[in-house]
Protein backbone atom coordinates (compact mmCIF):
# COMPACT_ATOMS: atom_id res chain seq x y z
CA UNK A 1 0.00 0.00 0.00
CA UNK A 2 2.55 2.50 1.14
CA UNK A 3 4.73 1.73 -1.86
CA UNK A 4 1.87 2.10 -4.27
CA UNK A 5 0.70 5.58 -3.36
CA UNK A 6 3.53 7.73 -4.76
CA UNK A 7 3.39 5.72 -7.93
CA UNK A 8 -0.22 6.57 -8.62
CA UNK A 9 0.27 9.82 -10.48
CA UNK A 10 3.09 8.31 -12.44
CA UNK A 11 0.95 5.32 -13.33
CA UNK A 12 -1.90 7.51 -14.34
CA UNK A 13 0.42 9.41 -16.66
CA UNK A 14 1.87 6.21 -18.01
CA UNK A 15 -1.54 4.73 -18.70
CA UNK A 16 -2.65 7.75 -20.66
CA UNK A 17 0.65 8.69 -22.16
CA UNK A 18 -0.71 8.05 -25.62
CA UNK A 19 -2.99 11.02 -25.09
CA UNK A 20 -1.01 13.18 -22.74
CA UNK A 21 2.10 13.47 -24.85
CA UNK A 22 0.53 14.69 -28.09
CA UNK A 23 -2.33 16.57 -26.38
CA UNK A 24 -0.73 20.03 -25.98
CA UNK A 25 0.47 19.95 -29.58
CA UNK A 26 -2.92 18.80 -30.79
CA UNK A 27 -4.75 21.52 -28.88
CA UNK A 28 -2.34 24.17 -30.07
CA UNK A 29 -2.57 23.15 -33.70
CA UNK A 30 -6.32 22.97 -33.40
CA UNK A 31 -6.62 26.50 -32.03
CA UNK A 32 -4.09 28.07 -34.34
CA UNK A 33 -4.90 26.19 -37.51
CA UNK A 34 -8.29 24.52 -37.51
CA UNK A 35 -10.03 27.69 -36.43
CA UNK A 36 -8.46 29.71 -39.27
CA UNK A 37 -9.19 26.93 -41.76
CA UNK A 38 -12.83 26.69 -40.80
CA UNK A 39 -13.08 30.45 -40.69
CA UNK A 40 -11.52 30.83 -44.14
CA UNK A 41 -13.90 28.25 -45.50
CA UNK A 42 -16.88 29.97 -43.89
CA UNK A 43 -15.85 33.41 -45.16
CA UNK A 44 -15.42 32.00 -48.67
CA UNK A 45 -19.16 31.34 -48.66
CA UNK A 46 -20.06 34.92 -47.74
CA UNK A 47 -19.98 38.24 -49.59
CA UNK A 48 -17.93 39.92 -46.87
CA UNK A 49 -16.05 42.93 -48.19
CA UNK A 50 -15.22 46.37 -46.91
CA UNK A 51 -16.34 48.15 -50.04
CA UNK A 52 -20.09 47.69 -49.83
CA UNK A 53 -20.41 48.57 -46.17
CA UNK A 54 -19.34 45.48 -44.29
CA UNK A 55 -22.69 43.67 -43.82
CA UNK A 56 -22.05 39.96 -44.20
CA UNK A 57 -24.49 37.62 -45.86
CA UNK A 58 -24.26 34.02 -46.93
CA UNK A 59 -24.02 33.60 -50.70
CA UNK A 60 -23.18 29.93 -51.10
CA UNK A 61 -20.73 29.12 -53.86
CA UNK A 62 -20.99 32.48 -55.63
CA UNK A 63 -17.40 33.42 -54.81
CA UNK A 64 -16.16 30.22 -56.40
CA UNK A 65 -18.30 30.77 -59.47
CA UNK A 66 -17.03 34.34 -59.79
CA UNK A 67 -13.51 33.05 -59.39
CA UNK A 68 -14.03 30.74 -62.35
CA UNK A 69 -15.29 33.70 -64.35
CA UNK A 70 -12.32 35.91 -63.47
CA UNK A 71 -9.56 35.87 -66.08
CA UNK A 72 -7.16 37.09 -63.42
CA UNK A 73 -7.75 33.89 -61.47
CA UNK A 74 -6.82 31.69 -64.43
CA UNK A 75 -3.90 33.93 -65.16
CA UNK A 76 -2.81 33.43 -61.54
CA UNK A 77 -3.17 29.65 -61.70
CA UNK A 78 -1.21 29.59 -64.94
CA UNK A 79 1.56 31.79 -63.55
CA UNK A 80 1.76 29.81 -60.32
CA UNK A 81 2.30 26.62 -62.28
CA UNK A 82 4.68 28.29 -64.73
CA UNK A 83 6.79 29.73 -61.93
CA UNK A 84 6.84 26.44 -60.05
CA UNK A 85 7.68 24.27 -63.06
CA UNK A 86 10.38 26.64 -64.29
CA UNK A 87 12.02 27.23 -60.92
CA UNK A 88 11.84 23.67 -59.65
CA UNK A 89 12.79 22.20 -63.03
CA UNK A 90 15.99 24.20 -63.27
CA UNK A 91 16.73 23.65 -59.59
CA UNK A 92 16.54 19.88 -59.98
CA UNK A 93 18.69 19.70 -63.11
CA UNK A 94 21.25 22.17 -61.83
CA UNK A 95 21.16 20.76 -58.31
CA UNK A 96 21.77 17.19 -59.44
CA UNK A 97 24.55 18.32 -61.75
CA UNK A 98 26.34 20.23 -59.01
CA UNK A 99 25.92 17.32 -56.62
CA UNK A 100 27.53 14.94 -59.13
CA UNK A 101 30.45 17.33 -59.52
CA UNK A 102 30.92 17.68 -55.78
CA UNK A 103 30.46 14.00 -55.02
CA UNK A 104 33.94 13.15 -53.82
CA UNK A 105 36.15 13.99 -50.92
CA UNK A 106 38.18 17.12 -51.33
CA UNK A 107 39.79 19.81 -49.33
CA UNK A 108 37.34 22.59 -48.49
CA UNK A 109 34.23 20.52 -49.11
CA UNK A 110 32.70 21.82 -45.91
CA UNK A 111 33.33 25.42 -46.91
CA UNK A 112 31.70 24.86 -50.28
CA UNK A 113 28.74 23.25 -48.55
CA UNK A 114 28.51 26.23 -46.20
CA UNK A 115 28.53 28.66 -49.13
CA UNK A 116 25.74 26.67 -50.72
CA UNK A 117 23.72 26.85 -47.53
CA UNK A 118 23.85 30.62 -47.19
CA UNK A 119 21.28 31.58 -49.85
CA UNK A 120 18.79 29.29 -48.13
CA UNK A 121 19.15 30.78 -44.68
CA UNK A 122 19.45 34.44 -45.69
CA UNK A 123 16.27 36.37 -44.90
CA UNK A 124 14.09 36.42 -48.05
CA UNK A 125 12.84 39.98 -47.56
CA UNK A 126 16.38 41.34 -47.45
CA UNK A 127 17.35 39.19 -50.42
CA UNK A 128 14.35 40.35 -52.43
CA UNK A 129 15.18 44.01 -51.90
CA UNK A 130 18.77 43.43 -53.01
CA UNK A 131 17.75 41.51 -56.15
CA UNK A 132 15.34 44.30 -57.06
CA UNK A 133 18.35 46.53 -57.35
CA UNK A 134 20.35 43.92 -59.32
CA UNK A 135 17.52 43.74 -61.82
CA UNK A 136 17.28 47.48 -62.39
CA UNK A 137 17.83 47.59 -66.17
CA UNK A 138 19.91 50.76 -66.28
CA UNK A 139 21.96 50.81 -63.11
CA UNK A 140 21.61 47.22 -61.91
CA UNK A 141 24.23 44.51 -61.89
CA UNK A 142 22.17 42.17 -64.07
CA UNK A 143 22.55 44.10 -67.27
CA UNK A 144 26.09 45.10 -66.39
CA UNK A 145 26.91 41.41 -66.23
CA UNK A 146 25.18 40.71 -69.53
CA UNK A 147 27.13 43.55 -71.12
CA UNK A 148 30.41 42.11 -69.88
CA UNK A 149 29.44 38.81 -71.46
CA UNK A 150 28.58 40.60 -74.68
CA UNK A 151 24.88 39.81 -74.41
CA UNK A 152 22.01 42.21 -75.10
CA UNK A 153 20.48 43.83 -71.99
CA UNK A 154 17.20 42.56 -70.56
CA UNK A 155 14.28 44.42 -69.02
CA UNK A 156 14.12 41.84 -66.21
CA UNK A 157 11.20 42.68 -63.92
CA UNK A 158 10.00 45.34 -66.35
CA UNK A 159 8.94 42.97 -69.10
CA UNK A 160 5.91 40.72 -69.03
CA UNK A 161 7.85 37.94 -70.71
CA UNK A 162 10.92 38.15 -68.49
CA UNK A 163 9.39 38.76 -65.09
CA UNK A 164 8.58 35.14 -64.19
CA UNK A 165 11.96 33.82 -65.34
CA UNK A 166 13.64 36.65 -63.43
CA UNK A 167 11.72 35.82 -60.24
CA UNK A 168 12.35 32.13 -60.80
CA UNK A 169 16.06 32.90 -61.00
CA UNK A 170 15.96 34.27 -57.45
CA UNK A 171 14.17 31.14 -56.30
CA UNK A 172 16.73 29.06 -58.18
CA UNK A 173 19.54 30.95 -56.51
CA UNK A 174 17.98 30.31 -53.12
CA UNK A 175 16.97 26.71 -53.48
CA UNK A 176 19.20 24.87 -55.98
CA UNK A 177 21.63 24.22 -53.14
CA UNK A 178 18.92 22.36 -51.26
CA UNK A 179 18.56 19.89 -54.12
CA UNK A 180 22.33 19.59 -54.28
CA UNK A 181 22.61 18.84 -50.58
CA UNK A 182 19.76 16.36 -50.69
CA UNK A 183 21.30 14.54 -53.63
CA UNK A 184 24.73 14.57 -51.99
CA UNK A 185 23.20 12.96 -48.92
CA UNK A 186 21.42 10.47 -51.18
CA UNK A 187 24.65 9.67 -53.03
CA UNK A 188 26.40 8.93 -49.77
CA UNK A 189 23.78 6.35 -48.91
CA UNK A 190 23.90 4.45 -52.22
CA UNK A 191 25.17 0.85 -52.15
CA UNK A 192 28.79 0.72 -53.32
CA UNK A 193 28.42 -2.71 -54.92
CA UNK A 194 26.48 -1.49 -57.94
CA UNK A 195 29.23 0.99 -58.80
CA UNK A 196 31.94 -1.58 -58.39
CA UNK A 197 30.09 -4.00 -60.62
CA UNK A 198 29.65 -1.37 -63.32
CA UNK A 199 33.30 -0.37 -63.00
CA UNK A 200 34.41 -3.98 -63.40
CA UNK A 201 32.22 -4.20 -66.52
CA UNK A 202 34.28 -1.31 -67.93
CA UNK A 203 31.55 1.29 -68.01
CA UNK A 204 32.65 4.92 -68.58
CA UNK A 205 32.07 7.62 -65.98
CA UNK A 206 29.20 9.01 -67.96
CA UNK A 207 27.65 5.59 -68.42
CA UNK A 208 27.87 4.92 -64.70
CA UNK A 209 26.09 8.18 -63.96
CA UNK A 210 23.47 7.61 -66.63
CA UNK A 211 22.69 3.96 -65.96
CA UNK A 212 23.57 3.40 -62.31
CA UNK A 213 23.65 6.59 -60.26
CA UNK A 214 20.63 8.43 -61.60
CA UNK A 215 18.22 5.47 -61.49
CA UNK A 216 19.30 4.75 -57.93
CA UNK A 217 18.77 8.37 -56.99
CA UNK A 218 15.34 8.60 -58.55
CA UNK A 219 13.31 8.28 -55.35
CA UNK A 220 15.47 10.87 -53.60
CA UNK A 221 15.15 13.31 -56.45
CA UNK A 222 11.42 12.81 -56.72
CA UNK A 223 10.81 13.55 -53.08
CA UNK A 224 13.10 16.57 -53.20
CA UNK A 225 11.25 17.79 -56.25
CA UNK A 226 7.88 17.60 -54.60
CA UNK A 227 9.05 19.21 -51.39
CA UNK A 228 10.31 22.09 -53.50
CA UNK A 229 7.05 22.23 -55.47
CA UNK A 230 5.02 22.70 -52.30
CA UNK A 231 7.11 25.67 -51.26
CA UNK A 232 7.39 27.14 -54.74
CA UNK A 233 3.60 27.08 -55.15
CA UNK A 234 3.33 29.19 -52.00
CA UNK A 235 6.15 31.63 -52.81
CA UNK A 236 5.20 34.97 -51.36
CA UNK A 237 7.95 37.07 -49.79
CA UNK A 238 10.06 37.45 -52.89
CA UNK A 239 7.29 38.28 -55.34
CA UNK A 240 5.64 40.63 -52.85
CA UNK A 241 8.88 42.52 -52.33
CA UNK A 242 10.05 42.59 -55.95
CA UNK A 243 6.98 43.13 -58.16
CA UNK A 244 3.77 42.85 -56.12
CA UNK A 245 2.45 40.97 -59.14
CA UNK A 246 3.49 43.30 -61.97
CA UNK A 247 4.14 44.46 -64.62
CA UNK A 248 0.44 44.48 -65.30
CA UNK A 249 -0.54 41.16 -63.75
CA UNK A 250 2.34 39.27 -65.32
CA UNK A 251 3.68 37.89 -62.04
CA UNK A 252 0.48 37.73 -60.04
CA UNK A 253 0.58 34.18 -58.70
CA UNK A 254 -2.28 32.69 -56.70
CA UNK A 255 -0.79 33.67 -53.37
CA UNK A 256 -0.29 37.27 -54.50
CA UNK A 257 -3.75 37.33 -56.09
CA UNK A 258 -5.34 36.20 -52.82
CA UNK A 259 -3.24 38.73 -50.97
CA UNK A 260 -4.32 41.53 -53.28
CA UNK A 261 -7.94 40.51 -52.90
CA UNK A 262 -7.81 40.54 -49.14
CA UNK A 263 -5.35 43.23 -48.15
CA UNK A 264 -5.56 45.64 -51.07
CA UNK A 265 -9.15 45.26 -52.26
CA UNK A 266 -10.53 44.11 -48.90
CA UNK A 267 -12.80 41.54 -50.54
CA UNK A 268 -12.41 38.91 -47.87
CA UNK A 269 -15.04 36.53 -49.29
CA UNK A 270 -13.46 36.33 -52.72
CA UNK A 271 -9.98 36.18 -51.22
CA UNK A 272 -10.93 33.24 -49.04
CA UNK A 273 -12.23 31.37 -52.06
CA UNK A 274 -8.90 31.96 -53.83
CA UNK A 275 -7.05 30.71 -50.77
CA UNK A 276 -9.12 27.54 -50.69
CA UNK A 277 -8.13 27.04 -54.33
CA UNK A 278 -4.46 27.50 -53.53
CA UNK A 279 -4.72 25.19 -50.57
CA UNK A 280 -6.30 22.52 -52.76
CA UNK A 281 -3.44 22.85 -55.21
CA UNK A 282 -0.82 22.47 -52.49
CA UNK A 283 -2.73 19.64 -50.86
CA UNK A 284 -2.84 17.76 -54.15
CA UNK A 285 0.94 18.10 -54.29
CA UNK A 286 1.26 16.73 -50.81
CA UNK A 287 -0.96 13.76 -51.48
CA UNK A 288 1.43 12.89 -54.24
CA UNK A 289 4.29 13.01 -51.75
CA UNK A 290 2.53 10.67 -49.37
CA UNK A 291 1.67 8.34 -52.18
CA UNK A 292 5.28 8.36 -53.36
CA UNK A 293 6.55 7.67 -49.89
CA UNK A 294 4.37 4.61 -49.84
CA UNK A 295 5.28 3.50 -53.34
CA UNK A 296 8.98 3.81 -52.74
CA UNK A 297 8.78 2.49 -49.19
CA UNK A 298 10.46 5.56 -47.83
Amino acid at each position, binding site marked *: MSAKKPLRV*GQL*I*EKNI*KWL*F*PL*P*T*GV*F*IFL*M*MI*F*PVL*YTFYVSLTDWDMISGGLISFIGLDNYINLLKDPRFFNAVKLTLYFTVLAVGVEVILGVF*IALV*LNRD*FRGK*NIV*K*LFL*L*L*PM*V*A*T*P*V*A*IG*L*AWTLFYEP*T*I*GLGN*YGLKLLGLPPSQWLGSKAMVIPALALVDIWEWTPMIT*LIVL*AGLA*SLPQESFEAAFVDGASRFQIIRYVTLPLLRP*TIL*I*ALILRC*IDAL*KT*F*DIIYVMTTGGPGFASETL*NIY*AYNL*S*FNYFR*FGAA*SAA*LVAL*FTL*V*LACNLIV*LWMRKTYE*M
Partner: protein
Amino acid sequence: MKEVASREMWRLKTESRIKWKEIGWYLMVIIITIPFIFPLIWILTAAFKTQAQIIASPPLWIFKPTLNNFKSVFMEQNFARFLWNSSVVAVASTVLSLLLGLPAAYSISRYNQRALGVFILVARLMPGISFLIPWYILFSKIRLVDTFTALIASHMLVGLPLIVWIMLNHFDGIPRELEESARVDGCSIQNAFFRIVLPISGPGIITATTLSFLFSWNNFMFSLVLSTNRTKTLPIAIYNFVSYAEVSWGNVMAAAVVIITPAIILTMIFQRYVIKGLTMGAVKG
Protein backbone atom coordinates in the same frame (compact mmCIF):
# COMPACT_ATOMS: atom_id res chain seq x y z
CA MET B 1 66.23 -0.49 -68.24
CA LYS B 2 64.48 0.95 -71.21
CA GLU B 3 61.25 -0.44 -70.00
CA VAL B 4 61.65 1.11 -66.61
CA ALA B 5 62.34 4.51 -68.13
CA SER B 6 59.27 4.44 -70.32
CA ARG B 7 57.21 3.31 -67.40
CA GLU B 8 58.58 6.16 -65.36
CA MET B 9 57.72 8.60 -68.13
CA TRP B 10 54.23 7.20 -68.44
CA ARG B 11 53.75 7.62 -64.71
CA LEU B 12 54.90 11.25 -64.85
CA LYS B 13 52.69 11.95 -67.82
CA THR B 14 49.63 10.46 -66.15
CA GLU B 15 50.42 12.34 -62.98
CA SER B 16 50.57 15.66 -64.73
CA ARG B 17 47.37 14.81 -66.57
CA ILE B 18 45.70 14.02 -63.29
CA LYS B 19 47.08 17.25 -61.86
CA TRP B 20 45.62 19.31 -64.69
CA LYS B 21 42.36 17.49 -64.40
CA GLU B 22 42.43 18.20 -60.70
CA ILE B 23 42.98 21.92 -61.28
CA GLY B 24 40.23 22.02 -63.86
CA TRP B 25 37.90 20.34 -61.44
CA TYR B 26 38.67 22.80 -58.66
CA LEU B 27 38.12 25.64 -61.11
CA MET B 28 34.70 24.24 -61.88
CA VAL B 29 33.83 24.08 -58.19
CA ILE B 30 34.82 27.71 -57.83
CA ILE B 31 32.73 28.70 -60.85
CA ILE B 32 29.76 26.85 -59.38
CA THR B 33 30.14 28.36 -55.93
CA ILE B 34 30.68 32.01 -56.81
CA PRO B 35 27.15 32.78 -58.06
CA PHE B 36 25.71 31.54 -54.80
CA ILE B 37 27.75 33.80 -52.56
CA PHE B 38 28.29 36.75 -54.86
CA PRO B 39 24.94 38.48 -54.12
CA LEU B 40 25.62 38.20 -50.41
CA ILE B 41 29.06 39.70 -50.81
CA TRP B 42 27.53 42.49 -52.87
CA ILE B 43 25.02 43.23 -50.11
CA LEU B 44 27.87 43.35 -47.62
CA THR B 45 29.87 45.85 -49.67
CA ALA B 46 26.80 47.93 -50.46
CA ALA B 47 26.18 48.33 -46.75
CA PHE B 48 29.38 50.36 -46.60
CA LYS B 49 28.60 52.56 -49.60
CA THR B 50 26.77 55.85 -49.88
CA GLN B 51 23.49 55.96 -51.77
CA ALA B 52 25.17 57.52 -54.79
CA GLN B 53 27.87 54.84 -54.82
CA ILE B 54 25.31 52.06 -54.68
CA ILE B 55 23.35 53.25 -57.68
CA ALA B 56 26.49 54.16 -59.63
CA SER B 57 26.82 52.43 -62.97
CA PRO B 58 29.17 50.77 -63.82
CA PRO B 59 29.35 49.41 -60.28
CA LEU B 60 32.11 50.66 -58.02
CA TRP B 61 34.39 47.94 -56.74
CA ILE B 62 36.82 50.18 -54.94
CA PHE B 63 35.45 52.87 -52.68
CA LYS B 64 36.00 54.54 -49.37
CA PRO B 65 33.81 52.61 -46.93
CA THR B 66 31.43 54.57 -44.75
CA LEU B 67 29.83 53.52 -41.49
CA ASN B 68 26.96 55.98 -41.89
CA ASN B 69 24.50 53.31 -42.94
CA PHE B 70 25.09 51.30 -39.80
CA LYS B 71 24.96 54.46 -37.77
CA SER B 72 21.48 55.26 -39.00
CA VAL B 73 20.42 51.65 -38.62
CA PHE B 74 21.33 51.59 -34.95
CA MET B 75 20.99 55.25 -33.93
CA GLU B 76 18.03 56.53 -35.94
CA GLN B 77 16.04 53.34 -36.21
CA ASN B 78 16.90 51.59 -32.99
CA PHE B 79 17.72 48.28 -34.61
CA ALA B 80 19.12 47.02 -31.31
CA ARG B 81 15.53 46.91 -30.13
CA PHE B 82 14.38 45.02 -33.23
CA LEU B 83 17.28 42.57 -32.85
CA TRP B 84 16.13 41.95 -29.30
CA ASN B 85 12.52 41.50 -30.45
CA SER B 86 13.48 39.04 -33.16
CA SER B 87 15.60 37.09 -30.68
CA VAL B 88 12.85 36.94 -28.07
CA VAL B 89 10.32 35.72 -30.60
CA ALA B 90 12.64 33.20 -32.23
CA VAL B 91 13.98 31.78 -28.97
CA ALA B 92 10.63 31.62 -27.20
CA SER B 93 8.77 30.11 -30.14
CA THR B 94 11.51 27.51 -30.57
CA VAL B 95 11.69 26.57 -26.90
CA LEU B 96 7.93 26.30 -26.59
CA SER B 97 7.73 24.28 -29.79
CA LEU B 98 10.32 21.90 -28.35
CA LEU B 99 8.37 21.53 -25.11
CA LEU B 100 5.21 20.71 -27.00
CA GLY B 101 6.74 18.93 -29.96
CA LEU B 102 9.21 16.49 -28.39
CA PRO B 103 6.66 14.43 -26.41
CA ALA B 104 4.24 14.60 -29.32
CA ALA B 105 6.80 13.31 -31.79
CA TYR B 106 7.78 10.56 -29.39
CA SER B 107 4.21 9.45 -28.97
CA ILE B 108 3.55 9.55 -32.70
CA SER B 109 6.64 7.45 -33.29
CA ARG B 110 6.05 4.89 -30.56
CA TYR B 111 2.29 4.51 -30.86
CA ASN B 112 2.19 4.86 -34.60
CA GLN B 113 -0.21 7.83 -34.51
CA ARG B 114 0.50 8.64 -38.15
CA ALA B 115 -2.84 10.37 -38.69
CA LEU B 116 -1.84 12.95 -36.12
CA GLY B 117 1.48 13.34 -37.91
CA VAL B 118 -0.22 14.11 -41.19
CA PHE B 119 -2.60 16.46 -39.40
CA ILE B 120 0.35 18.44 -38.08
CA LEU B 121 2.01 18.44 -41.47
CA VAL B 122 -1.02 20.14 -42.99
CA ALA B 123 0.01 23.21 -41.01
CA ARG B 124 3.03 23.44 -43.27
CA LEU B 125 0.87 23.33 -46.36
CA MET B 126 -1.63 26.05 -45.56
CA PRO B 127 -1.05 29.32 -47.36
CA GLY B 128 0.05 31.65 -44.58
CA ILE B 129 -2.18 34.58 -45.44
CA SER B 130 -5.34 32.65 -44.71
CA PHE B 131 -4.34 32.69 -41.04
CA LEU B 132 -3.91 36.40 -40.67
CA ILE B 133 -7.41 37.77 -40.24
CA PRO B 134 -8.74 34.86 -38.13
CA TRP B 135 -5.68 35.12 -35.90
CA TYR B 136 -6.10 38.80 -35.47
CA ILE B 137 -9.68 38.31 -34.38
CA LEU B 138 -8.73 35.45 -32.07
CA PHE B 139 -5.92 37.36 -30.42
CA SER B 140 -8.03 40.50 -30.09
CA LYS B 141 -10.74 38.60 -28.28
CA ILE B 142 -8.28 37.34 -25.70
CA ARG B 143 -6.52 40.73 -25.55
CA LEU B 144 -3.16 39.49 -26.75
CA VAL B 145 -2.73 41.60 -29.84
CA ASP B 146 -0.17 43.97 -28.44
CA THR B 147 2.06 41.31 -26.97
CA PHE B 148 4.91 39.01 -27.81
CA THR B 149 2.64 36.11 -26.95
CA ALA B 150 0.61 36.45 -30.15
CA LEU B 151 3.71 36.71 -32.28
CA ILE B 152 5.37 33.76 -30.56
CA ALA B 153 2.26 31.63 -30.99
CA SER B 154 2.10 32.43 -34.69
CA HIS B 155 5.75 31.57 -35.23
CA MET B 156 5.19 28.31 -33.36
CA LEU B 157 2.85 27.25 -36.09
CA VAL B 158 5.90 27.16 -38.34
CA GLY B 159 8.31 25.76 -35.76
CA LEU B 160 6.16 23.08 -34.20
CA PRO B 161 5.40 21.00 -37.33
CA LEU B 162 9.06 21.26 -38.28
CA ILE B 163 10.19 19.98 -34.90
CA VAL B 164 7.59 17.22 -34.78
CA TRP B 165 8.61 15.93 -38.19
CA ILE B 166 12.32 16.09 -37.65
CA MET B 167 12.05 14.43 -34.25
CA LEU B 168 9.60 11.86 -35.53
CA ASN B 169 12.19 10.69 -38.03
CA HIS B 170 14.80 10.75 -35.32
CA PHE B 171 12.79 8.73 -32.79
CA ASP B 172 11.89 6.22 -35.48
CA GLY B 173 15.61 5.57 -35.80
CA ILE B 174 16.15 4.85 -32.11
CA PRO B 175 15.74 1.14 -31.35
CA ARG B 176 12.95 0.41 -28.91
CA GLU B 177 15.10 -2.15 -27.09
CA LEU B 178 16.82 0.67 -25.23
CA GLU B 179 13.63 1.77 -23.53
CA GLU B 180 12.33 -1.74 -23.14
CA SER B 181 15.33 -2.81 -21.10
CA ALA B 182 14.82 0.23 -18.91
CA ARG B 183 11.16 -0.66 -18.48
CA VAL B 184 12.16 -4.13 -17.34
CA ASP B 185 14.14 -2.40 -14.62
CA GLY B 186 10.90 -0.75 -13.47
CA CYS B 187 11.16 2.57 -15.25
CA SER B 188 7.96 4.25 -16.40
CA ILE B 189 7.46 5.25 -20.01
CA GLN B 190 7.75 8.95 -19.30
CA ASN B 191 10.90 8.40 -17.29
CA ALA B 192 12.37 6.28 -20.05
CA PHE B 193 11.61 9.08 -22.46
CA PHE B 194 13.20 11.75 -20.30
CA ARG B 195 16.14 9.71 -19.02
CA ILE B 196 17.04 7.47 -21.89
CA VAL B 197 15.62 8.73 -25.16
CA LEU B 198 16.10 12.49 -24.83
CA PRO B 199 19.71 12.37 -23.63
CA ILE B 200 20.74 10.45 -26.75
CA SER B 201 18.67 12.67 -29.05
CA GLY B 202 21.07 15.61 -28.98
CA PRO B 203 21.78 15.71 -32.74
CA GLY B 204 18.09 15.55 -33.64
CA ILE B 205 17.19 18.25 -31.15
CA ILE B 206 19.97 20.52 -32.38
CA THR B 207 18.78 20.08 -35.96
CA ALA B 208 15.18 20.83 -35.06
CA THR B 209 16.08 23.78 -32.85
CA THR B 210 18.34 25.43 -35.39
CA LEU B 211 15.83 25.17 -38.21
CA SER B 212 12.92 26.32 -36.10
CA PHE B 213 14.97 29.31 -34.99
CA LEU B 214 15.97 30.19 -38.56
CA PHE B 215 12.43 29.98 -39.90
CA SER B 216 11.16 32.21 -37.12
CA TRP B 217 14.02 34.63 -37.63
CA ASN B 218 13.23 35.01 -41.35
CA ASN B 219 9.44 35.08 -41.06
CA PHE B 220 7.90 38.11 -42.73
CA MET B 221 4.21 37.52 -43.30
CA PHE B 222 3.05 36.73 -39.76
CA SER B 223 5.08 39.47 -38.17
CA LEU B 224 3.75 41.95 -40.71
CA VAL B 225 0.27 41.75 -39.26
CA LEU B 226 0.81 40.64 -35.68
CA SER B 227 3.72 42.80 -34.60
CA THR B 228 3.32 46.32 -33.31
CA ASN B 229 5.88 48.90 -32.38
CA ARG B 230 6.90 47.15 -29.20
CA THR B 231 7.26 43.78 -30.88
CA LYS B 232 8.38 44.68 -34.40
CA THR B 233 10.86 42.10 -35.71
CA LEU B 234 13.77 42.64 -38.09
CA PRO B 235 12.19 41.59 -41.42
CA ILE B 236 9.47 44.21 -40.85
CA ALA B 237 11.89 46.81 -39.57
CA ILE B 238 13.90 46.73 -42.81
CA TYR B 239 10.89 48.40 -44.39
CA ASN B 240 11.49 51.40 -42.14
CA PHE B 241 13.95 52.50 -44.77
CA VAL B 242 11.40 52.39 -47.55
CA SER B 243 9.68 55.65 -46.80
CA TYR B 244 7.16 57.80 -48.59
CA ALA B 245 9.71 60.04 -50.24
CA GLU B 246 12.81 57.92 -50.71
CA VAL B 247 14.40 54.51 -50.40
CA SER B 248 17.72 54.65 -48.58
CA TRP B 249 19.41 51.74 -50.29
CA GLY B 250 22.53 52.00 -48.16
CA ASN B 251 20.47 51.72 -45.00
CA VAL B 252 18.44 48.87 -46.46
CA MET B 253 21.64 46.98 -47.24
CA ALA B 254 23.11 47.67 -43.80
CA ALA B 255 19.86 46.47 -42.24
CA ALA B 256 20.02 43.39 -44.46
CA VAL B 257 23.50 42.67 -43.15
CA VAL B 258 22.24 43.03 -39.58
CA ILE B 259 19.40 40.61 -40.27
CA ILE B 260 21.33 38.03 -42.24
CA THR B 261 24.50 37.87 -40.13
CA PRO B 262 23.03 36.04 -37.11
CA ALA B 263 21.41 33.52 -39.43
CA ILE B 264 24.72 32.94 -41.16
CA ILE B 265 26.66 32.62 -37.92
CA LEU B 266 24.16 30.10 -36.62
CA THR B 267 24.42 28.18 -39.87
CA MET B 268 28.21 28.15 -39.67
CA ILE B 269 28.15 26.73 -36.15
CA PHE B 270 25.52 24.10 -36.81
CA GLN B 271 26.23 23.50 -40.50
CA ARG B 272 26.03 19.72 -40.25
CA TYR B 273 22.70 19.81 -38.48
CA VAL B 274 21.16 22.41 -40.76
CA ILE B 275 22.05 20.32 -43.79
CA LYS B 276 20.61 17.27 -42.12
CA GLY B 277 17.38 19.04 -41.30
CA LEU B 278 16.89 20.57 -44.72
CA THR B 279 17.61 17.35 -46.57
CA MET B 280 15.83 15.06 -44.21
CA GLY B 281 12.45 14.83 -45.83
CA ALA B 282 13.99 13.20 -48.86
CA VAL B 283 16.71 10.91 -47.61
CA LYS B 284 16.12 8.43 -44.89
CA GLY B 285 18.75 8.20 -42.13
